């Protein structure tokens, strides 16, 4: 390392891989909290899966074209998200279509990646994330991407909520539900691209759904649920890292385990609380 010793403390702090990992997890939660709430409200869980699985195909594309990994995943995830949203608008039987797309994207991705022997060895990094190997550059991309997603959702918040409640109500209020859906589609693609390094393609949907589902029982407003999901996501990331250190378990799955524990606790708390 050629770090100059007089650097201010927070830059040297970023030299610690654990601090970078923690910041990456918290940064991702900024995007997955609000976006995951919409995924739950609009029942888009499978849509999240299809987009996330397409990221593996994006890795193969990036390796084949010498693009950065994030750029490849962003392009392919956006393509998949737009294709799925387009099919939904035409009234396809979504459950089956999404099932076909989600699983075939994963299978094609795994086959394509296998042509690159260097990746074969650490394929699990793309499937389950490699949060402990997050670099400063990765951290910038994660916070930048999550910031874009959070800002986009905050900007369209009122319109998105109205369109989620009822599309006719949105239309009558002068809004275009198709445009709001596109906002979610793009937010999903960006989230997938930044989440790949943190929790991996297989667990992105879990990071979207589980904290939001946990926050549901505790919230009385949509804003409360989105903030709660963000907070629980961040806590799950930190707790998962702790678990990973303590028990030497893989970090990505450990984060999801922590989120699931939060979900169970929230469900029990919600039961005990008088309605």
């Amino acid at each position, binding site marked *: 390392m050629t770090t100059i010793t007089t650097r201010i403390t927070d830059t040297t702090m970023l030299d610690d891989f654990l601090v970078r990992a923690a910041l990456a997890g918290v940064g991702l939660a900024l995007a997955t909290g609000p976006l995951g709430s919409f995924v739950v409200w609009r029942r888009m869980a499978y849509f999240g899966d299809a987009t996330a699985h397409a990221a593996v195909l994006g890795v193969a594309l990036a390796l084949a074209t010498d693009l950065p990994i994030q750029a490849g995943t962003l392009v392919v995830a956006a393509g998949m998200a737009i294709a799925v949203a387009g099919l939904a608008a035409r009234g396809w039987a979504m459950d089956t279509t999404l099932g076909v797309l989600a699983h075939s994207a994963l299978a094609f991705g795994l086959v394509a990646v296998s042509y690159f022997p260097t990746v074969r060895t650490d394929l699990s990094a793309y499937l389950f994330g490699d949060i402990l190997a997050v670099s400063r550059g990765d951290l910038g991309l994660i916070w930048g991407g999550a910031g874009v997603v959070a800002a986009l959702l905050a900007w369209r918040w009122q319109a998105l909520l*109205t369109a989620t409640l*009822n599309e006719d*109500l949105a239309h009558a209020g002068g*809004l275009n539900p198709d445009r709001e859906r596109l906002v979610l589609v793009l937010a999903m693609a960006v989230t997938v691209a930044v989440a790949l390094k943190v929790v991996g393609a297989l667990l992105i949907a879990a990071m979207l759904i589980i904290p939001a*589902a946990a926050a*549901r029982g505790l919230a009385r*407003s949509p804003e409360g649920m989105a903030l709660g999901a963000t907070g629980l996501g961040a806590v799950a990331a930190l707790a998962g890292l702790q678990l990973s250190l303590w028990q030497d378990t893989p970090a990505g799955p450990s984060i999801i385990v922590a989120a699931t524990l939060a979900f169970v606790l929230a469900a029990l708390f919600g039961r005990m609380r008088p309605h």
Partner: protein
Amino acid sequence: MTAPLLSASHICVRLGGAEVLHDVSLALAAGEIVTIVGPNGSGKSTLIRALLGIVPVAEGRIDRAPGLRVGYVPQRLMIDRSLPMTVRRFLSLPVRASDAQAAAVLARTGMAGTEGLQLTALSGGQMQRVLLARALLGGPQVLVLDEPTQGLDQPGEAAFYRLIEEVRADTGCAVLMVSHDLHVVMAASDRVICLNGHVCCEGAPHLVASAPEYRALFGLGTKGALALYRHDHDHDHAAPHDHHHHPHHGHDHA
């Protein structure tokens, strides 16, 4: 007579290749209550949606008075249980309403003090009143309601139509609503339009109910209701002078 607030002139609407509405014209004047009746699949909701600009018209035109304020009550609001939403928060979608405005419209619809309730905790009748309250925000000149009493029991239905009449009397807004059943809206409507892809007949409720076109559509399904109605009104068999007889397209009714 002033220009209508909202009108459709000879509109045709096609959905997925099929013509759902053919050569439909209607005009809504300030302060009147107009009800569109017709069997399932007759294009009632499509007509409302065309008037609101939600579905495009293939032919004809929709005219709105400049700056027209429309309040819309959708057919039914399915609230997913995963979405926490209080009545107060709902009234601020998509345009934020002040606490005073929210309290005023809730009081107007008999839902005063319910701001803190979750939408999922409301009964069907309460939900319709909250939807109506939301539509009243911003002081609409026209209220558009798409089968607002679906899923309500008969007393609930009657109470809701009384409420609509009160709101009209209070605010002077015009009301355009859809119903599948004529007899329940009879008392509350100034004018009824009987629709089955085209306008079969229109006029005052009692005239429409005695029109052969209306009976051809509803004769079998609502015999009981019609009998009830005729019991009330069979002294009045004035010539249906304000019926619009359109070239008939032969209803396929056994």
